[in-house]
């Protein structure tokens, strides 16, 4: 019997395959394609204390081997999320990681406190890395002191395990990982999108209304693998790796770089079955390579 279970901060996942926040809603839209029971966890779209309308359109555009997005964290706010999305996810035998966003530390704390009494929220992932909003998010993730402060504040207001989701838009990812760990984070996840820009040369206009957007997709995978490697070797807490994962082979690469779990992001849009195919493919890989426990892969390079 091959073991595919991994454990992060005391939470055991049936397998290491999740999806990247914002690429899967709260699972509802993709439950038509994928049996959510098969996933290690569903990571929900970022939720704030109040509804956020997001950015003007166009919000997305394709780039070579990936895409740019500047959705701007449109979300219905924590009340609707708790009334609608968490009960929906209760029907499934999978872990639920709730991604939390905010403009100020107080915003984040309000959401985190509201979720403290929700048994269906197994873990919290704190978005300090979205590049598409003017306040909050990435502002916390690019400044070591701000990252340390918000991590401590959130840890002080919840008993649930906390994952800090880091941005690649920094000079030294290892340092940011260490700052999160020292401030009490139970795990880190990376990478969020890389800030990019596209210009429509016929119209002489930005492709996105927001001018800049976050790049995701297979084209960023080597950057993500490198950062997961660097971050995971800088800290003792577990790392959830993501950035351009399309296949089980990609997922295994991230685990070998040091990730305990992995997320499929943009590729859900391209292949709505990608998460389930990763689960199947990882099992086949373990079997064909005579590996009894998936944990053997983590950081093995």
């Amino acid at each position, binding site marked *: 019997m091959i073991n595919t279970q991994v454990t992060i901060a005391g939470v055991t996942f049936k397998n290491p395959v999740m999806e990247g926040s*914002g*690429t*899967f*809603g709260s699972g509802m*839209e*993709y439950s*038509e*394609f994928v049996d959510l029971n098969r996933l290690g966890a569903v990571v929900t*779209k970022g939720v704030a204390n109040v*509804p*956020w*309308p*997001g950015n003007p*359109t*166009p*919000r*997305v*555009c*394709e780039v*070579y*081997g*990936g*895409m740019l*997005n500047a*959705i701007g964290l*449109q*979300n*219905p*706010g924590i009340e*609707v999320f708790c009334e609608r999305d968490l009960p929906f996810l209760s029907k499934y035998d999978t872990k639920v990681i709730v991604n939390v966003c905010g403009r100020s530390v107080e915003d984040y704390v309000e959401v985190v406190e509201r979720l403290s009494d929700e048994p269906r929220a197994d873990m919290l992932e704190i978005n300090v890395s979205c590049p598409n909003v003017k306040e909050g998010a990435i502002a916390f993730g690019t400044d070591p002191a701000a990252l340390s402060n918000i991590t401590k504040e959130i840890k002080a207001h919840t008993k649930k395990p906390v994952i800090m989701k880091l941005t690649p838009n920094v000079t030294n990812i290892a340092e940011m990982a260490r700052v999160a760990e020292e401030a009490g984070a139970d795990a880190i996840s990376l990478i969020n999108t890389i800030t990019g820009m596209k210009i429509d040369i016929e119209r002489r206009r930005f492709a996105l209304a927001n001018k800049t957007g976050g790049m995701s*997709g*297979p084209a960023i995978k080597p950057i993500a693998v490198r950062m997961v490697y660097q971050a995971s070797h800088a800290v003792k807490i577990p790392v959830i790796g993501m950035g351009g994962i399309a296949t089980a082979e990609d997922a295994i690469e991230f685990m070998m770089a040091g990730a305990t779990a992995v997320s499929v992001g*943009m*590729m*859900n*849009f*391209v*292949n*709505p*079955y990608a998460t389930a195919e990763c689960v199947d493919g990882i099992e086949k890989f373990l079997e064909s390579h005579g590996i009894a426990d998936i944990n053997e892969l983590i950081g093995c390079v």
Partner: protein
Amino acid sequence: MKRKTVGKVLSQKCLAPGIYDLEIATCLASDAAAGQFVGVYTKDASALLPRPISICGVSDDRKSIRLVYRIAGKGTDEFSRLKEGDEVTLLGVLGNGYDLDKIKSLGNNDTPVRALLLGGGIGVPPMLELSRELAAAGVKVISVMGYRNSDTFLLDEFKKYSDTYVASEDGSVGTKGNVLDAVRENTIEFDCICACGPLPMLRAIKEFAGGKPAFISLEERMACGVGACLGCVVKTRDIDHHSHVNNARICTDGPVFEASEVEI
């Protein structure tokens, strides 16, 4: 049920410069309807996202769909080279089409409902399947299609299902001007409007419709096509049911909306 599936090209022909007519055998045809769309995948791994293309026709045996599209970039350029027997990967069927029951309910027992179909440019193709479905449902269909010039692709096919009028920007065919110029010139009477075309045309239609229902099909840059990414939103008059922020998802709440419900 939505799915990603491989279809087989039955035929492809060029209808006008840059306009192609692609017939694909696919299981998606079984529940495809006017106003819905499919995502079409390229074989180019650098161009990953499915291209949303509206359904121009569903075969009588419901085994194939017809897509009429304009070359707008490298994805659609690749599609234009597909040949009979080629495989093509599709995501579908996506979106909500035109609500035939609602349109039918606009009339009374004595006279059939008069639906005015307005298509502009590459907004013409979805109107063809709609005209077919409405005519089959006993609705009186009046089609007014607008083109840039005399390349009036699909126009003859509308005549099977509707009274057909045409407008062209350069005046080479029909009314010189846009579809609304043709509606005014021919003093066309109607109970509701169904439209697809460029945004300025849809804005003008929203204003023109007055108190009458106008069902318009919107377009926006899309990523997932299934309502997850929140890329393709439109401002709405009322609170939307998904995010509660007056932003409906064009791919799943639309692409067809009642004009009075959206701020365009």
